[in-house]
C-alpha cells in the first residue's frame, strides 16, 4: 500500500495486512503525535490496513514558540 508521510512530504510503499498502530510502530512514529487516514477517511488504531489502500500518516505536532 502507498503511505504518504509529511514533513518532509514523501511516499513509501509498505506491505498491507497490519493495523494502524502497528504501522505507526513499524515506522517509528508516536501514536499521540499522528493521525492515520485510510482512503480519505480517518481511522482508529485498531483499523486494518490492506494492500491497495492509500494511506496518509499526518503529523499533528506544531510549534513556533521559543
Amino acid at each position, binding site marked *: 500500500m502507498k503511505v504518504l508521510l509529511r514533513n518532509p512530504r514523501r511516499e513509501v510503499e509498505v506491505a498491507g495486512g497490519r493495523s494502524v498502530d502497528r504501522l505507526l510502530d513499524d515506522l517509528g512514529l508516536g*501514536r499521540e503525535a499522528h493521525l492515520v487516514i485510510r482512503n480519505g477517511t480517518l481511522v482508529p488504531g485498531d483499523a486494518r490496513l490492506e494492500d491497495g489502500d492509500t494511506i496518509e500518516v499526518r503529523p499533528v505536532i506544531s*510549534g*513556533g514558540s521559543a
Partner: protein
Amino acid sequence: MTAVGSKCRVCKAPAVIDLPRHNAKFCAEHLQQLCRRQMAKAIDDFDMLSIDDRILVAVSGGKDSLAVWDMLIEAGYQADGLYVGLGIGDYSDDSGGYVRRFADERGLQLRTIDLRDDYGYDIPTASKATGRVPCSACGLSKRRLFDQAALDGGYDVVVTGHNLDDEAAVLFGNTLRWDIEYLARQLPVLPAADGFPKKVKPLVRLTEREMAAWCLVRGIDYVVEECPIAAGNRHLSYKESLNAVEANSPGSKASFYLGFLERMAPLLAGNSAAAAGALHRCAQCGSPTTGEVCAFCRLVEKSSAHEPVPVEMILPRRAKAGRR
C-alpha cells in the same frame, strides 16, 4: 478487503479515532460533540467569552486557529479573523492561502497585516537584525499586532488557538527553569488591562491530535507542513518529551496543565510584572512596557533598517538537510 474497525463508545457506529486519555473511541459525530463540550467547559470554567462579545481570532492557517474559529462560529459567537503575513518564504504564502479560502468559503470577515508591506520587515530579517531566535521575533511581533488590531478595531477579546499540548509544553519549559514570572502569567485568560485587550485560549482542554481530527472530520483544509524555521526548536522537543510520558500514562498532559491551573496558579497570583505595577508607557508608541522603549519598537527600528534576509539564510540545520 478492508476489515471493520472498532465502535464509537456513544453510538456504536464505526469509530474514526481512539483517545486513550478518555479510554474511548469515537465516531466523527461524537468526536465533534466531545470537542464542543471541552471548549464550552473551558469557556465557562474560566469565564472566557460572552455570546455578545466581538471576538478577534488570531489565525495562522494551521489546524488549531482554523478549528477554534470554526468552533466559535458554530457555537454562535461573532468572530472575525486576523492573519499576519510573516514573510517566511513559501510557507507564509501557503498559510495565507489556507486562511483566505477558509474565510471566503464561510463568508467570514478576515483582517490581514503584512509585516513587510506594513512595517518594513519580515521574520527572517528581524531574527538576523536583532539576534533574537526567529520564534521569539515572531511571537513578539504577533502578540503586539494582535493586541493593537483588537484595540483599534473595538474588539472585546482576542482568541488564540493554543491547545493543551501547547500549554503543557510551555508549562514544562517554565517549570524546568522555575521561571516564576512566566509561570504566574501562564493562564488561559489574560484580562483586559491598560493598553492590553482581553486574551483567551478556548482550546486548553483539547489536544492537538483532537484538533487535527476536528479539522479532518469537518473538511477543514489547513497547512500541514511545519514552519521551516521552527524545526527542532525547544518547544517541539518539550512536546515530544511529554508525548513519551503520555504514551505510557494517558491523561498525564491534562493532569499536568489543568492541575497547575487548579492548584498552583492561585499560589503564584501577584508575581507577574503587570500585577506588581512595574509597567509604564513606551516612549515611542505608548504601549505598556517594562523598559524605556518597548521590545516591539526596538525590533521594528532595527529590522526595517536591515537589508532583507531570505528565509534560507536562517533555516535550522535539520530543515536545511531535509531540503536537499
